[in-house]
């Protein structure tokens, strides 16, 4: 009897969690249906999705902080994208290439994005409560100014003499700028080896800086732990000189198969570490601390075993990941989490939950909101750099126009809402949204004999999912207000 109850309850819970994630579930179903009817092999779709993931994930992740700070979905990230494109144009016209060119882009677009972000933040502060509609309109407005800059000012007022970039008449920038040969794949082609080298140097600098600052401020040195960490890094660095390792790391792409294998290995090592930490570090008996590590090890084992299934193996060897780009995506995920653990992040959350409380707690609400907008704008500009260097062609007048739309739709598809968003939802959202994006035209032409329907369908999905979740959010806010009212009224009635 009890068992039955439990079963019923867990079934109930499962149904409820499915219902709560209905958007995600709907899109999973749509994606599976799409893949099944696309008429292309699964590995083709997966390859495409991984490429698009590397391109777009960063932009989507740039949306998370404003959501937490109560600004809602930042339709204004288009402004960040515009900053990046201005930077790219100048860097290309000056003739910088490769990593240098990319770094130049970052150097130019970051201050520009901070300035833009500050202005956008100011505007949002003037329109508190309607940031989203302001952001939407702002995106179009900024687009207008951008076109004005690129069509008239460049060449018309600012002399630029570069026939590959400028329209024949000498005024205005051409429709497309080919990035091949300058910054195409500039980030994607950074090899693992150079990443490790750079990281090693950074660690060395930080260690030195810490040491010096502690010496100057006459604080405790903690020399042992510092040196230990540095020594460990040195060992890893030394390993890269082993020829086999060196050739492996010399690549800039990582086969998905290898990535999975490495992940499994990492997970297994982590499991051992957890176990040791529990038993030796905290001196707990085995029985108390075996659950998590063992579960982890089992999952890693199963995943590894799955790589031997032919169908999966086929997919795994078909996909290769640009390591540096994926690493940056991981870094940004980490950054989003890290910022929440700081005072600034806590202030943002407070402001996001209630401006009144934040204000009475002495938090500068306006400043916090501006900082959140700035961070988002800067991240968006970097995201657009990543997007364009991977794409390789720069549509001068169109590259930025759908950035906000697609990024926001992706985030929402992942189950985020106007008030809640996290890394997981962003990543899941990018995968689902872009899977649908890849397969929709294919399956539409398969099913209806018209790819056009699929094209329109995916645009509809993009707009539709945004409309839906905006409506659901507004709905919820009203319902919540009513509920709160009822609750606060009901309280004294209990006496």
């Amino acid at each position, binding site marked *: 009897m009890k068992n039955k109850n439990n079963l019923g309850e867990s079934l109930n819970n499962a149904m409820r969690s499915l219902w709560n994630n209905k958007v995600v579930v709907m899109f999973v179903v749509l994606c599976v249906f799409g893949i099944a009817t696309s008429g292309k092999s699964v590995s083709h779709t997966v390859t495409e999705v991984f490429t698009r993931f590397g391109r777009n994930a960063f932009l989507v992740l740039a949306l998370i902080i404003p959501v937490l700070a109560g600004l809602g979905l930042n339709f204004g990230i288009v402004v960040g994208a515009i900053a990046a494109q201005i930077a790219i144009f100048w860097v290309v016209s000056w003739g910088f290439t490769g990593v240098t060119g990319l770094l130049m882009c970052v150097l130019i677009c970051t201050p520009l994005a901070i300035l833009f972000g500050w202005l956008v933040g100011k505007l949002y502060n003037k329109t508190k409560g309607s940031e989203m509609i302001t952001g939407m309109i702002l995106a179009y407005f900024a687009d207008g100014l951008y*076109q004005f800059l690129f069509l008239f000012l460049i060449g018309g007022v600012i002399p630029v003499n570069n026939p590959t970039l400028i329209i024949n008449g000498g005024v205005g920038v051409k429709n497309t700028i080919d990035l091949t040969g300058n910054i195409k794949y500039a980030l994607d082609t950074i090899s693992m080896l150079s990443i490790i080298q750079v990281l090693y140097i950074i660690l060395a600098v930080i260690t030195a800086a810490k040491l010096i600052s502690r010496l100057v401020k006459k604080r405790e040195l903690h020399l042992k732990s510092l040196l230990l960490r540095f020594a460990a890094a040195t060992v890893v660095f030394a390993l890269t000189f082993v020829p086999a390792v060196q050739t492996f790391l010399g690549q800039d792409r990582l086969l998905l198969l290898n990535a999975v294998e490495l992940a499994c290995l990492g997970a297994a090592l982590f499991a051992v570490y957890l176990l040791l930490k529990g038993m030796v570090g905290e001196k707990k008996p085995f029985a108390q601390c075996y659950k998590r590590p063992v579960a982890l090890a089992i999952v890693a084992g199963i995943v590894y075993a799955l790589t031997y299934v032919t169908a999966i193996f086929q997919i795994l060897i078909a996909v290769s990941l640009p390591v540096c780009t994926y690493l940056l995506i991981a870094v940004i995920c980490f950054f989003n989490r890290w910022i929440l653990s700081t005072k600034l992040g806590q202030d943002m959350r407070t402001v996001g939950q209630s401006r009144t409380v934040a204000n009475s707690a002495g938090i500068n609400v306006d400043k916090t909101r501006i900082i959140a907008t700035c961070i988002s704008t800067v991240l968006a500009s970097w995201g657009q750099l990543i997007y364009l260097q991977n794409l390789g062609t720069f549509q001068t007048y169109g590259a930025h126009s759908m950035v906000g739309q697609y990024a926001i739709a992706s985030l929402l598809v992942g189950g985020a809402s106007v008030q809640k968003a996290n890394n997981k939802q962003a990543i899941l959202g990018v995968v689902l949204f872009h899977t649908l994006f890849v397969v929709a035209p294919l399956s539409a032409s398969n099913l209806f004999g*018209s790819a056009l329907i699929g094209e329109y369908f995916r645009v509809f999905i993009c707009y539709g999912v945004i409309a839906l979740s905006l409506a659901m959010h507004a709905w919820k806010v009203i319902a919540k207000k009513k509920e709160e009212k009822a609750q606060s009224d009901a309280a004294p009635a209990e006496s």
Partner: protein
Amino acid sequence: MKSKLKSAYQAIGLPRLIISAFFLIVLIMAGVYNIGIPALLGDVLRRWGMYGVLVLAMVPAIQCGIGPNFGISLGIVCGLFSSLIAIELNIAALPCFASTPVLGQWCSMLFAMVLGALIAWFVGVAYGLLLNRVKGSEMTVSTYVGLSIIAFMNILWVTLPFKSGDIKWPIGGEGARNTISLENSFGELLNKTGGFYLIGSEESGGLFIPTGLLVFFFLMCLLIYLFMRSKTGKAMTAAGANPNFARASGINVDKMRILGTAVSTSLGAVGIITYAQAFGFLQMYNAPLMMGFHCVAAILIGGASISKARISHVIIGTFLFQGLLVIALPVANKVLVGTDLSDIMRMIISNGIIIYALTKAKGGTASNEE
């Protein structure tokens, strides 16, 4: 004197002052560059009537409290759909109109308008129900509802089995054409009704007065004006201006909002048909995507705010906004050769004015909540 000037300035408002000044400047420049002013003015009048009804659709929406109707695309697609039906049924060329083709054209257009308004009414009621559930975020939601419906209708335009040669691509291609000529149905019907050249002639680029179009536009304005003066119209306005006040007078606020939305959507359908006949073509697919924004911008330029609009705002705003664009285009072409400034200008002006209105709206005062 000073205070009088100040109050006059406040009544006109900064944006209108800038736009009017700009309007005058381009008009003078057009004279300086020797661009055919009569033809330009004729074009201004045409565009005035062409966009007028669409902009008019904003009035009931703003007055009933849902704010500027960015979702006017809902009405627009209804109008497009009914026009397609009118063309498909080939009403203008029915045998009974063989002797009087003009009558056929009128029937065709009125059929499209009535059908469009009717469909739009039902759509508007449903849309109003939605907007009642999202009070406080109408603008955000309506913007995306507007965008989604265009994308959704794109699918329909591709798939609907139209037979008429005017609608289908001549060779190959799926679904309806991008632009559908109205030559065989009701193209330029209103414009030409009673239209005449005030100055010059067609060949010399004279000032053409599209009498029928303007009469129709003002007639619609008058109708809406009378509606706003009726008991229901008054109730609707009160529901928008102060819902609590309206409730205290026994008015069902939600119902009034639905009514306003439905009227606005229907006007959108009629408006797009007016627009299309003046243009001579139906523009399908993504062409109406941004139209909502331009209509909102026009009425805001006319002096409306997010929560209050009058017929005069429609008339002034449409004239200034469209007039400015019409005259600025050839002037810009003279100044900056070989470029198309008008689209960019439209983008900057229309979105700029909306942002300005947003900072002045309730959202702006919300910053004082702490």
